[in-house]
């Protein structure tokens, strides 16, 4: 089994290198997944999955996204949701991978038994932490400095939408930033940075013959807008405007107009919803 081979090779590496202590078996024994028996390092625990970092047989860094069983919900519901989400994420990632101008991690493997999707590892921060800024004072990144990356997000979403795909969970935690050029550090020269979309488990296809497709696209953008407002309050409006502008410029004018009109309605709905029914 590849998993065991991987475990062994990690183990050997570890013996030589103390800096990889987070890969130690003792750490693995406390991790929340009972089905995983090999020592990998946990990099994140999202709402749906635990993510581990490891390497493939050829040394390529990968992440394993394991949708472990959620003890809080009924097993039959858990089973059904996990299947749906894994299928959606695998399909949408594969689809997006082929679209030029959209960056997603390469999908390497689907393991239904273990509930794993294995992706290319993306080196770099999430858009969320990147926007929050670095250093001890942690000042939010000013919109001008963030613009090149935010524009890429707008364009990527526009391309995805033009292909009738809806991301479904566009937040700043679901965009990774990697270096594509030669500059060092994650500093001000944001032109060298590349926005990578991840977490397509809630993605779905909404074709233009479907009456909801404009609504679906508007809601996709609205989710991002709200994620900015709730997590990056200071510059939320400016961030949103940059994403929108890039989205609109990159879309067909009539599509952009339709989505914009709908987006206005979706926002109104949020504000005007009656509180008692």
């Amino acid at each position: 089994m590849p998993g065991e081979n991987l475990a062994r090779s990690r183990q050997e590496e570890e013996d030589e290198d103390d800096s990889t202590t987070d890969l130690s078996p003792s750490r693995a024994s406390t991790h929340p997944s009972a089905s995983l028996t090999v020592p990998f390092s946990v990099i994140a625990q999202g709402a749906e999955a635990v993510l581990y970092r490891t390497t493939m047989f050829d040394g390529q860094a990968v992440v394993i996204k394991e949708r472990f069983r959620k003890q809080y919900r009924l097993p039959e519901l858990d089973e059904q949701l996990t299947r749906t989400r894994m299928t959606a994420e695998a399909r949408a990632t594969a689809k997006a991978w082929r679209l030029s101008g959209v960056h997603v991690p390469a999908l390497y493997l689907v393991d239904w038994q273990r509930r794993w999707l294995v992706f290319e590892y993306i080196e770099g921060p999430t858009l969320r932490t990147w926007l929050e800024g670095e250093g001890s004072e942690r000042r939010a990144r000013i919109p001008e400095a963030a613009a090149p990356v935010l524009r890429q997000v707008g364009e990527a979403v526009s391309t995805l939408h033009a292909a009738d795909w809806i991301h479904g969970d566009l937040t700043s935690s679901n965009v990774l930033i990697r270096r594509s050029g030669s500059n060092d550090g994650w500093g001000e020269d944001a032109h060298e940075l590349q926005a990578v979309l991840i977490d397509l488990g809630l993605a779905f296809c909404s074709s233009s013959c479907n009456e909801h497709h404009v609504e679906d696209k508007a809601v996709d953008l609205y989710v991002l807008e709200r994620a900015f407002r709730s997590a990056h309050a200071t510059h939320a409006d400016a961030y949103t405007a940059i994403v929108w502008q890039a989205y609109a410029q990159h879309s067909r004018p009539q599509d952009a107009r339709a989505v914009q009109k709908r987006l206005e309605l979706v926002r109104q709905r949020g504000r005007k919803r009656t509180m008692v029914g």
Partner: protein
Amino acid sequence: MPLFLGVEGSANKVGVGIVSDAGAVLCNERETYVPATGTGFQPRETARHHQRQVVQLLQRALRAAGVTPRELAGVAYTGGPGMGAPLQSCAVAARTFAQLFRLPLVPVNHCVAHIEMGRLVTGAVDPAVLYVSGGNTQVIAYSEQRYRVFGETIDIAVGNCLDRLARLLGLSNAPSPGYNIEQAAKRGKRYVPLPYCVKGMDVSFSGLLSYAGELVRRVSVEDLCYSVQETVFAMLVEVTERAMAHCGYRDVLVVGGVGCNARLQEMLRVMCEGRGGRLWGMDERYCVDNGCMVAWAGWLGRGEGDGWAGVRQRWRTDEVVVGWRE
């Protein structure tokens, strides 16, 4: 020891509570308007109920706390959001009371009051908040002087969904439809799959409700209640967890009437423990609308007002400047 009195009446409950500046609850009196089985509460009837009850509730509250109006430092009332006529009735009562005894009057946002009472009762310091009631379904976290809404329902509130299901099933509205669904669900055995609708951090219940409506005579009441609870609560836990992962919270505080449901609390507890955190929950006295929460939020927000003392049917949680928190 300054004391604050609060009057709540945004929906079908009318309540009066008195709290001290230190957060001690001196009394918590409440009356509920219970419409006939199979019907919901209408604004006019509900307002009439509150008008009839509010004076004797005020008297009862003062008696229970053993204080006179002159010992109070101020009066708070729910300014919104909620149903216009019931809100108005209680605002009039609070205004009259304040003028009679020359007390300062503070309008309070109902959602913020739910959250602040939850923090007071449980001692949770900075949790992610799940606010689930008949009129609201929101995932909230505090940052920079506001309670920010991360996720919410895109159509009806979860309590509203349960209340309407209870009506379809002919369950009683006393003490509350949600309570009766909870009891029936305990006897449910078979899980019937229902539409599960999560969009990022948002949820939607209207599709599930109409689907459940079609199953009414084909599935037993117990199994349907059980299946609906399992499905809608799983949706709520998922969006709560997503907001937590997004902003790095470990603890959850659940407030609002649906928040006293034991199964929902259990599911949230399991989820929190899986993230190394904990759940802060309360029982029906403070989860369901009450006067104390309004009194306490009024005390906290006493310095914030601009003299406005009206009612607003729509008043979003994130519009309130939370000047009393770090």
